[in-house]
């Protein structure tokens, strides 16, 4: 059985963390927690790649391949070989 959601593109470099806690604040799945003076990845498997942590990290300690996870747009892109467009929601 394939488990498509066990891996994701979230990467975090604790060496760059200043402990501002923004990642823990913005994450809707509690992937980060502030442990003393640095953020810690406590539940990386729950990451949905929304990109909120990366966007709000002032030191660039977080990288994630974020984007609109819209299956319809991605299927069209996969079939046509074109670049993934934005979601049909707009």
């Amino acid at each position, binding site marked *: 059985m394939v*488990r*498509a*959601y066990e*891996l994701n593109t979230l990467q975090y470099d604790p060496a760059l963390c200043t402990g501002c806690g*923004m990642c823990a604040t913005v994450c*809707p799945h509690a992937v980060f927690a502030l442990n003393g003076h640095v953020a810690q990845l406590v539940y990386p498997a729950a990451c949905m790649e929304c990109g909120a942590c990366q966007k*709000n990290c002032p030191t660039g300690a977080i990288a994630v391949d*974020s984007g609109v996870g819209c299956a319809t747009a991605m299927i069209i892109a996969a079939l046509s070989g074109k670049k993934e467009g934005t*979601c049909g*929601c707009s």
Partner: protein
Amino acid sequence: MSTNRNPLQTHIQPTTSAITPANRWDHFLARLGVNRMRHRVTPGLYALGNPTPDSPVFVAANYTLSFDALRSALAGVDGYIMVLDTRGINVWCAAGEGTFGTDELVQRIEKTALHDVVSHRVLILPQLGAPGVAAHEVKERSGFRVEYGPVRAADLSEYLKARRATPEMRRVRFTLRDRAVLVLVEVVHALLPMSIVAVVMLFLSNLLASAAVVAATLAGVVLFPIMLPWLPTRDFSSKGFILGGAVALPFALAAFLRSPDAAWWLRAGQALTYLLPLPPLTAFLALNFTGSTTFTSRSGVRREIFTYIPIMAWSFGIGIVLAIVLSLIRVVGG
């Protein structure tokens, strides 16, 4: 409303926390997907109650459902609501696309002369706007500090008491109620193609085939969202295959039993014309539902597409070819 308005503030429009029957009708149409892009609020600054220069400023998307959820949650609060131009899209999707974003926020602060309206420099944003907004950049470019409020507007009054969100307020959920609300728009989108195929099947084949198409489609757009957490396996496609298989089974059985005098391989073949093309149809609709959830990652959905779409295509294709071959045999044989 106060009457001694500062001339600078004439661009501020009054609003209330009341949700009128007209608002409810608009929400219903939005949920149905009717005129999806037309449920808009004019971007700009709104005054809720009787705000003073010390009152809090809340930032919203210009989708009526988003704006109304915010203002109705702020009953009894005096404050400002700054509506960004997200082209009628909700906060989460607009943040993902960048329209609920740093640039629009900074520009809207300037356009509404927010510096002159309030004396403080704090903005309260919905947490789900964070994928589009870099708080540190907003601070640098406008002087305003971004404070992320709770995920749900309903938690705002609790949040405002201590200006702190509990861990519970920071988490997105995907409750039965959340999923049930989505069923309506899923059905609306599926209705036309489903009806066309069902009618075509009625003429090409029979009532059983027509009913099976309707059942497999409704399984994908109604049963699947409702049953999502309880279906076995993790991936949406495999969940969809299992659900679609369960729905196709009685139709396959009926097809097998309806011609007891025919050769066994013909009867088994008839059953397969239900078991092969229907489950992938349900699975495909299930896979599409990933776009509506609050937890599927893009790389995961991509992995699902590359893993399961070929299986769906083969199963569906072989099933259709088999159905054509069997009906040719019947025409030749009969």
